[in-house]
């Protein structure tokens, strides 16, 4: 059994290497041997530029610096959006009054893609950081609020009854029953929201910034520098993947109780 599993993992990795290798090879041949080379740099050139960009500046910073800029924007706005979204969502899911007051307002904002706010945000907050925080906040907030709300509504009424029978009052039920039972929903929301926030920061930086992953791409376009654009895209992809993996790890730890298996 054990051997079988190792074999399967090995085969998976092996076939991944083969397919990526084949892709790189075709890419290399295509860009070297045909006119495609004028549209696209080859893989060797791109990878070496990518490595070089980690220690030489593009604009004011290395690629690491640009990514850290984008990440800090995301983390600040995502955290604020997350905290407010979790509180508002669970409150709307449990307290009818909170739902009556906030839900109509929230439902109005929810269907609007965060990127659509960028122009308005610029008029309100100017071209600085606040504008970026604001649109990323909206992206994270609307997703997380929705999930927290759905989670709080999906709480098992039997558990509410059990808590009541054990003497729990309304506020206690909210804290000790509604909130924890919404946690798996909230995590699903955080997971989607971090990806959405990452996409949004790139968009916001493409509109106006002097650093960040989005700026790399836009500046690459303005300078007609295809390698810089591709480096930006690759960096964005890698960071997006890492954020997703981290979220999944945290989720697996904190929501262990909701998964079966001994």
């Amino acid at each position, binding site marked *: 059994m054990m051997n079988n599993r190792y074999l399967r993992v090995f085969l998976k990795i092996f076939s991944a290497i083969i397919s990526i290798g084949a892709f790189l090879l075709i890419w290399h041949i295509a860009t070297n041997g045909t006119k495609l080379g004028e549209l696209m740099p080859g893989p060797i050139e791109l990878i070496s530029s990518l490595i070089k960009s980690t220690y030489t500046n593009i604009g004011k910073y290395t690629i690491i610096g640009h990514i850290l800029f984008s990440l800090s924007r995301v983390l600040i706005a995502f955290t604020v959006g997350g905290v407010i979204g979790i509180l508002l969502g669970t409150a709307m899911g449990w307290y009818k009054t909170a739902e009556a007051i906030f839900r109509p307002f929230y439902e109005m904002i929810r269907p609007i893609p965060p990127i659509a706010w960028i122009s308005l945000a610029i008029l309100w907050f100017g071209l600085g950081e606040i504008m970026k925080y604001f649109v990323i906040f909206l992206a994270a907030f609307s997703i997380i609020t929705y999930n927290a709300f759905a989670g709080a509504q999906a709480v098992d009424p039997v558990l509410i009854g059990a808590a*009541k*029978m*054990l003497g729990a009052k309304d506020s206690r039920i909210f804290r000790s029953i509604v909130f924890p039972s919404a946690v798996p929903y909230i995590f699903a929301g955080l997971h989607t929201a971090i990806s959405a926030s990452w996409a949004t920061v790139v968009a916001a930086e493409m509109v106006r910034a002097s650093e960040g992953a989005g700026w790399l791409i836009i500046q690459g376009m303005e300078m007609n520098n295809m390698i810089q654009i591709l480096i930006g895209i690759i960096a964005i992809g890698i960071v997006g993947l890492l954020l997703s993996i981290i979220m999944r790890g945290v989720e697996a730890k904190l929501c262990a109780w909701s998964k079966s298996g001994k």
Partner: protein
Amino acid sequence: MQTNIKVEVKNLTKSFGDLLVLDDISFNVTSGEFLCIVGPTGCGKTTFLNSLTKLYSITKGSILVNNEPVNLKKHNIAYIFQENSTFPWLTVEQNVSFGLDIKKVPKDKKKENIKEVLDIVGLYAFRKYYPVQLSASMVQRVSIARAFATKPELLLMDEPYGQLDIELRYKLEDELIRLWKKTNTTVLFITHNIEEAVYLGDRILVLSNKPTKVKESIDNHIPRPRSIVSPEFVKLRNRVTELIKWW
């Protein structure tokens, strides 16, 4: 005599809209009694317990505990639901602790209390486990331990062993009897399993089909521990079976 009555159900009527479920039901439960209630599926057994505990409002009539209207803050009532009601995000130990935390039981007293009930249901070794890691019967024992930990004066159980296989049921039934004897709790035990009712109860209340009335109340004086194959057991079981033949 009056002080000896734990629960007094007076002309209890409960309907959901046009659907009349409990129809003018009256009976008493004596302090320390183990009362089994049997009735066909859908006759309103769960509805009765939910009315007693105020999860549902009563249409007409009243339910008194210790001669006064039910007050969950004052009366220490525990309720074991038909469905699994353990909190999945809490460990076994934390589940049992839930009611004690609310009642602000001091720390060492609480620890002692938790150990005592978990020992009785045989789950002390599993105290750090989450419900999802346990089997169905173990989860049900967590609910039982959680209920007993608060030392209830009145314990309500709604077909708690319905989902379990026979062997485990026997085991948990004996465990329950032991706990009941030790604590002097009054128990209302709902089941549709006649053998279970005859095995456990001091008395069996047989309910009719909807709209539901009390069909008969049968005292059960068979000495404990009871044997399900003894002639008197079989005789009583047959009598109850006869009563509910028309379900």
